[in-house]
């Protein structure tokens, strides 16, 4: 029983040390995000994205139907055309 007790103590210490460490580590990471990253974000903002590219990022809103053809479709088709040709050229 003595051995068992010792194991329990070991396991308990591990639990304590482990949880303290995990919380400490991830809290430091919060600090890192709130200080370093936040400053970087202010100092190096993302460049303003050109309109066409931004349109592509709106995932599910391309108008496939209707009279007009969305620029996404045109781009997709021309990309498909390019790929098709590359395959034929090889």
């Amino acid at each position: 029983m003595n051995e068992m007790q010792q194991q329990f103590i070991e396991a308990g210490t591990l639990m304590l040390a482990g949880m303290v460490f995990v919380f400490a580590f991830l809290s430091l990471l919060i600090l890192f995000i709130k200080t370093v990253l936040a400053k970087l974000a202010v100092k190096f903002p993302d460049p303003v994205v050109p309109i066409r590219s931004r349109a592509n990022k709106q995932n599910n809103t391309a108008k496939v139907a209707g009279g007009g053809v969305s620029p996404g479709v045109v781009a997709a088709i021309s990309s498909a055309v390019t790929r098709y040709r590359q395959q034929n050229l090889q």
Partner: protein
Amino acid sequence: MDKLNTLWLSTGLANFELGQVVMMLVGCGLLYLAIARNFEPLLLLPMGFGAILTNIPMAGFSEVGGLLHYVYYAGIDTGIFPLVIFMGVGAMTDFGALIANPKTLLLGAAAQFGIFATLFGAIALNAVPGIEFTLKDASAIAIIGGADGPTAIFLASKLAPELLGAIAVAAYSYMALVPIIQPPIMKALTSEDERKIEMEQLRSVTKIEKIIFPLGVLLMTIFFLPAATPLVGMFCLGNLMRESGVVDRLSSTAQNELINITTIFLGLGVGSKLSAEAFLNVETLGILGLGAVAFSIGTASGVLMAKTMNKVSKTPINPLIGAAGVSAVPMAARVANKVGLEANPHNFLLMHAMGPNVAGVLGSAVAAGILLALVGG
């Protein structure tokens, strides 16, 4: 006649042992879970198949010269396969939600209590006759609570290779069971009003933050926990390849072909550890039981932490997203979203739950590093 006799003596039927038959059934069970129940099929299908192959009498898949022998020793014993997969997972992970709401890291930390409580539980199981877990064994089992396959396989291959099969089975099975295990716990620990809480929209995150983040994580791991750098390092490499935007072809290969190839062989290799001697004993039952406990405690810790934070924080925090802190990406985040929607049809928690979800991956890797540093070696 002589030939026919030789042929008969070389058949499986003439050489089967009971344990092999049972383990093949276990392999078939894993295939069933993978195919019919869609339980983490990417790993459980090759793993179940590997379990069948390794138990074929006279075939020698896992003996010197056998295919699974090579696969195991080249890829798993060295740690290469789980690390390559972790790189691919890193390349698939978007830390945007986490960076936008960094305090969700605390939820990922709290959920790791599942790991350490299970470590305690595994030692307690030594009271059961027939079970004798060393501290290394207990640590390898506890990591199931991390809800992270490659981390569990990596740690188990270092600390308790003979338990690797059972641990992997438990880890992936419970990860697949997340949608069943978590909701009752989440509902028991939260009130209807809490579940209805809507959270503020996340701010947008800049490219530079996403690039520097993996480097910061790596730096902190180097400073404070070098034992976790294999896991965290490869994960951050993958994430840096993704976010840097300059090596898209490498990032894409890491997320697709490379991780697929490695997954096939990882599954086969892990399956090759499902031999009768290693699996058919009381300890496996203990491991399966502890796995369920680990997941439950992890979920509960995450939810309780989120409840506490909600009371302290200025901005509202829906306690449900705490459950996502166990990782099991992206399943746990989807579960949080679903339970949230049930309480409030306008409550979309998915993006908010992604923060604790990926925080849980980091938390488990850190916990694995602590166990390696304190128990391993």
